[in-house]
């Protein structure tokens, strides 16, 4: 597939979910036999209609029965299919966690879970439809690769990569009907390798999902205030990029993790688990939901309560940096 700037702009307007199911999945179905896409009654919401019409034999709607969906996906995978299964991230990572644990983590079935509306994309729907703990649950399971794309292009690339590898994957899709562009042009998606999106000297921000673009804006604002801040996109939460982290902790004086997720068990925890094994490392600051649910509202309203807007990230980092200095 060609990744042109025009396409990248169009996919941004479709959001991560729209791009993955509207662009990547039809491409995967076109080039591969024995592919299946399963949904739990979210064909329309997920933008799967085009796929479902064009590839009816490679599509299955199991109804509102997420646990059954994961089991059916595993059975198909055991008999040779590459299965994508999708619903809201919370209904995969929380409701169906045990099915994921047995079938994907333990038995390593070749199923690619696509958790949509992760974080607080369904901000007004309330806590039931948020996934602010999915990384913590899924990350605890052995054998799964956990991907968390920063924009629509990366979501497409993550799906294409997952389709071509043998083994279970969880793809965490952030955002709703549109998604800010992080990558304006084509780039090499290398799973397991964090990406330096902005160079800096003093503070390193390690982030993922929608918080990548928010952090990039924050870093630009911090530059104006005289704080040089690098930004790293951790699109692969598991396996974590140990080499990349080792370099970051050796180079910077302050490391900040930013995630649209509870600070318990998510990206920050994954980074800290490795950092704890290193000698003489700088301090790590955790930005994310601080072990509390927020009130529903617009997504920005929710982020404001957690301190996750670009302006708030700036204030946090400035304050923490002044403590260092």
């Amino acid at each position, binding site marked *: 597939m060609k990744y042109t700037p025009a396409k990248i702009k169009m996919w941004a307007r479709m959001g991560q979910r729209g791009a993955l199911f509207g662009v990547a999945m039809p491409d995967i179905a076109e080039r591969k036999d024995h592919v299946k896409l399963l949904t739990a009654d979210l064909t329309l919401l997920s933008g799967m209609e085009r796929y479902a019409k064009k590839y009816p*034999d490679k599509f*299955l709607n*199991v*109804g509102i*029965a997420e*646990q*059954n*969906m*994961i*089991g*059916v*996906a*595993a*059975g*198909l*995978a*055991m*008999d*040779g*299919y590459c299965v994508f299964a999708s619903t809201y991230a919370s209904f995969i990572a929380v409701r169906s966690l*045990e*099915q994921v644990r*047995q*079938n994907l983590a*333990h*038995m390593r079935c070749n199923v690619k879970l696509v958790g949509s509306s992760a974080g607080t994309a369904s901000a007004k729907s309330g806590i039931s439809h948020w996934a602010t703990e999915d990384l913590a649950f899924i990350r605890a399971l052995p054998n799964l690769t956990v991907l968390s794309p920063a924009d629509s292009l990366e979501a497409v690339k993550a799906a294409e990569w997952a389709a071509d590898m043998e083994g279970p994957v969880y793809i965490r899709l952030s955002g709703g009907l549109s998604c800010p562009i992080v990558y304006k042009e084509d780039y090499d998606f290398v799973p397991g390798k964090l990406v330096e999106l902005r160079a800096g000297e003093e503070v390193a921000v390690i982030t993922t999902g929608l918080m990548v673009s928010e952090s990039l804006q924050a870093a630009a604002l911090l530059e104006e205030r005289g704080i040089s801040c690098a930004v790293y996109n951790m699109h692969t939460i598991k396996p974590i990029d140990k080499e990349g982290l080792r370099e970051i902790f050796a180079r910077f004086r302050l490391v900040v993790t930013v995630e649209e997720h509870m600070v318990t068990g998510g990206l920050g925890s994954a980074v800290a688990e490795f950092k704890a094994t290193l000698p003489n490392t700088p301090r790590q600051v955790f930005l994310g939901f601080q072990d509390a649910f927020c009130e529903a509202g617009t997504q920005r309203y929710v982020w404001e309560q957690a301190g996750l807007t670009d302006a708030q990230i700036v204030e946090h980092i400035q304050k923490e940096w002044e403590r260092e200095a």
Partner: protein
Amino acid sequence: MSGGSEKALHLTEMARRMRLDALDMALAAGGGGSHVGGSLSCIEILAVLYGEVLRMDPKNPLDVNRDRFIPSKNHCVLAHIPALAEAGFFPREEILEFQKNGGRLTGYPRRPEIGLEYSGGSLGMALSVGIGMALAAREQGRPSRIYILLGDGEMNEGSVWEAIQSAAHYGLDNLTAIIDRNRLSYDGDTEEVMGLDDLGAKMESFRWHVSQCDGHSTQALLEAFADQQAGRPHAIIAETVKGKGVSFIENRPEWHHHRLSQEEYEQARREVLGEAL
């Protein structure tokens, strides 16, 4: 254990050997105990499956055209392991190693090469997996038939009904669910713990084809397995006795998971051999 055809008699003999194997395994499990009751209730079901119904070849265990059997109630390990040994998937001596550190049967892993298609144990999961396998077989035009054994207590799990609903929706007539209706779960009488009532009527209302039979009659089971209907998944409600074949285990909830002492073992063995009661 009624008579009937020569085939049925042969299977009843196989079931007797498996019951003795199950006792050997229970004894080998020692003080930690094992799932005795729910294994003894489905011995005939597994004897009929592995002795007659399932089309699979231990010499070619990964043949894509093989039938698939998954015990969703994995509490039948003392019945399933002997059945696999009877079918020739591994030597009989190995069955006593089912709890040995490093053993290939320990903890019931997924090892299709020795007939273990699925690492079960958590109730309410395997019927969904069977549906995926049945869809795959149908789409690929394979003759494989998928058999899933469920416990009746397991029918309390909501995920089982998600699966029942979807198997009928997809018209999976290459899928058979056998329900070991022994009427006891861990805490006692299934109708007192959480009533299941008429499971056959429930599954018929979900558009399954339902056969009901004496789950200890190999002849009745043979007939039930053959009683299929085009366009519908098949359920066999096998009426059984938990702990079947051993007087002091039969219908005793405490034997769901229990240690078998040497004296109990010897008495149980005599009973299975028909030497004493």
